[in-house]
């Protein structure tokens, strides 16, 4: 641990100058693009300066019975080891495999692995190789026990329910310890790409604030730098060629203009972060360093390049399963393991020619009495349930509103349609119900989250919830200011699920069973117990 004293001091002598430089860069390129609406200019998104400002205010780091269910390997920031070209790490279901397509990574001095900010964290702190490049709640609990709560992941800025809470106590970190959630603070009202304030279509009130952060005088909505706090899971940083690819001028879901890569001017596909607030991995990295790492100044171009190059060559997927055995043996299903991710081509997988995760025919016929082959057959059936078992999808904005009708009779793969990741090939934010009432309430864990009341201005509404919406995480609407985006969360890839419970952006499904049960209720799918177990088994080998 570094000395708390200097990190706690108000760091804006240097910081303010560099943040000012940020806004100058913004102003200089502003005229080249008529940028009203969210997005980024230069390599800085509209919300970044405000967020960086709040991050600089939060103190930097300093038990009840928190027992991890499984002990994962832990990668310390700055430990300087080499990450092999191929690596495998144990998880409760088997092993997750990593492939560095460009060869072994020397992490010494590497911007993804070194604590480049002021709080001792690196990117790798929350994007751990053993956790499928995300972070499981078991790892969080393990770190709490191993370090007495002093691991930098618990940094007050977003590793606590609110930075103003006493940092030594587990209660102050309950959302991270219970559900693997970090505080994501975004400016309110939302920022346009050029950093000016937007005029949102709705007003936002805090109905209940269990963490105290939304009403806090320094960090809350009424502070001098007003921010909303929501709580979200880290997301997988790997397989990026699938996650970030292409882009078109208009969002096929609602006809709205898409963000551009501020450097190339090309349209992006808007599929990273729960709310797609960062147009590119580069603007994301700029932001992550200034917020999660409490960096004082922007990362250098060389550091940013190092991060992006690393992300772009890294592939992750489960490679071994306790019950299914070796997932990557020759002649096995084509869509499993990190090498399949490296070899594959992004595209639409919602068809019989190129199904999302390939076929599992090799595993379809069980040998009676052979548990491994029976488990494999269950996985093969699970893929068919995911792919072809229809139910009525209802009242989901950006799915039922896109011209397909409400409801539509389709399958999991209708939404999770992109090759090898199960993301949405189009911008993937939808109001599935994980954040908005009434459905969020069916997920017990969401009751620990803040509750907002959003009231749409005259003539504006959420298509299926009307003008007054209660939400635990308004998602994309906190960035776009649109009523139709309230509660819409971008879906993330299905890879390495076994290594990174809990699930959903707000961590509300503690395991795959809770996740499948949520869908069963939400869409009245009426899955049989066998179908549910097959789906769970299928998801656990990805």
């Amino acid at each position, binding site marked *: 641990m570094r000395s708390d004293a200097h990190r706690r001091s108000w760091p804006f002598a240097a910081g303010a100058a560099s943040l000012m430089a940020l806004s100058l860069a913004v102003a200089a390129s502003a005229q080249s693009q008529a940028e009203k609406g969210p997005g980024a200019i230069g390599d800085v998104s509209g919300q970044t300066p405000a967020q960086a400002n709040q991050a600089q205010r939060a103190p930097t780091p300093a038990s009840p019975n928190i027992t991890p269910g499984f002990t994962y390997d832990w990668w310390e920031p700055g430990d300087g080891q080499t990450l092999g070209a191929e690596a495998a790490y144990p998880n409760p279901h088997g092993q997750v495999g990593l492939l560095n397509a460009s060869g072994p990574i020397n992490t010494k001095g590497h911007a993804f692995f070194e604590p480049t900010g002021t709080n001792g964290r690196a990117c790798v702190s929350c994007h751990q190789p053993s956790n499928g490049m995300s972070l499981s709640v078991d790892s969080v609990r393990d770190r709490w026990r191993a370090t007495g709560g002093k691991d930098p992941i618990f940094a007050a800025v977003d590793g606590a329910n609110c930075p103003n809470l006493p940092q030594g106590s587990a209660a102050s970190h309950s959302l991270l310890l219970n559900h693997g959630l970090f505080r994501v603070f975004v400016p309110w009202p939302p920022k346009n790409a050029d950093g000016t304030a937007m005029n949102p279509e709705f007003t936002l009130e805090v109905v209940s604030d269990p963490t105290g952060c939304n009403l806090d005088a320094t960090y809350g909505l009424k502070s001098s730098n007003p921010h909303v706090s929501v709580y979200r899971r880290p997301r997988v940083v790997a397989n990026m060629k699938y996650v970030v690819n292409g882009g078109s001028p208009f969002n096929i879901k609602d006809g709205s*203009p898409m963000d551009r890569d501020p450097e190339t001017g090309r349209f992006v596909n808007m599929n990273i972060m729960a709310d797609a607030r960062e147009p590119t991995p580069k603007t994301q990295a700029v932001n992550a360093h200034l917020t999660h790492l409490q960096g004082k100044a922007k990362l250098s171009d060389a550091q940013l390049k190092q991060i992006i190059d690393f992300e772009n060559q890294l592939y992750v997927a489960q490679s071994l399963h306790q019950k299914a055995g070796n997932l990557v043996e020759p002649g096995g299903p084509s869509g499993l393991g990190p090498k399949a991710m490296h070899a594959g081509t992004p595209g639409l997988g919602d068809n019989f020619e190129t199904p999302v995760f390939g076929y599992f025919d090799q595993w379809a016929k069980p040998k009676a009495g052979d548990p491994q082959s029976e488990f494999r057959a269950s996985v093969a059936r699970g893929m068919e349930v995911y792919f072809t078992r229809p139910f009525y999808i209802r009242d989901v904005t950006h799915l039922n509103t896109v011209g*397909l009708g409400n409801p539509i009779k389709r399958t999991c793969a209708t939404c999770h349609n992109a090759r090898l990741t199960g993301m949405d090939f189009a911008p993937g934010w939808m109001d599935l119900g994980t954040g908005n009432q009434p459905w969020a309430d069916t997920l017990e864990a969401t009751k620990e989250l803040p509750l907002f009341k959003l009231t749409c201005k005259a003539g504006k509404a959420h298509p299926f919830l009307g003008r007054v919406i209660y939400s635990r995480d308004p998602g994309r609407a906190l960035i776009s200011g649109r009523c139709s985006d309230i509660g819409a969360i971008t879906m993330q890839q299905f890879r390495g699920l076994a290594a990174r419970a809990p699930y959903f952006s707000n961590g509300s499904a503690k395991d795959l069973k809770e996740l499948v049960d949520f869908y069963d209720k939400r869409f009245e799918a009426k899955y049989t117990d066998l179908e549910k177990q097959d789906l769970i088994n299928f998801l656990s080998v990805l």
Partner: protein
Amino acid sequence: MTKLKTSLVATAIVALCGATASAQTGKHIAFVSCPILRNTEPVPCWLGEHAGELYYLGPQGDLQAEFYPPQFNHKMLAEGIATNERYCGGIVLKQAKASVLPDFDATCNVMLPAMGYSERKDLRGPGPSGHRPAPGEKAAPEPPRPRPPQVQYTAPFTPKEFVATFDADTDRMWRSAQGAMNEALRYARAAKAKQITVTGYRAAIKLADGKDFVERESVAMSRAKVIEEAIRTQGLPEGAKLEVKWVTRPSASTGTERDAAARKVVIAVAP
């Protein structure tokens, strides 16, 4: 007693109307109702109800389909040309359109059982459905249709108008409106246009009950602005000036396809 009688009379009238509807084959019809879904296989079909008669609008499809289905929890404005065919339990409307009306309406929630009806099997849906084709068998949904080749715009360039049409009471740009806007921009680039004029309109639609459905006043402006934003998003062609205006007076209703065509933005390109 009297009540019972009236409802009997009503039923009789309904039956008559049914007869008239089929007699009025080829007639354009527009009505506001809740959408109704019939739970057919492999995909559901969509119906609307007017004066006691069911009308077939179209099947669930994908985004390349001509027909975009309506939404539960919203009323729709259904429009189309009545035929003497029946499908899925309703009179088939040709060129059917279902505009989703903005207001939330929880009463629009009716799902009918299949009752022996089924939908076409060759439709391509969003995502797979039905069974996986056996080896050698063709996949049931047809593959996506190839895009028609683009028109090449060549000199001499003359002033040209492109028309983007909209569903009732909305500025939502669907595929066809986007297409019109894209063509206007391609033409403007080819012609090195000096001026692009965007004009938004709103319409009145003559309903089957004789009343007018008048689009809200703000929609003429918001349509024009949506097209403006779209043009600016793609990049205004170099050297072109963009003028944006709107006509707040609604078009006069006609009770024909012209009512739907009047929900529009005209993009005039002047070389």
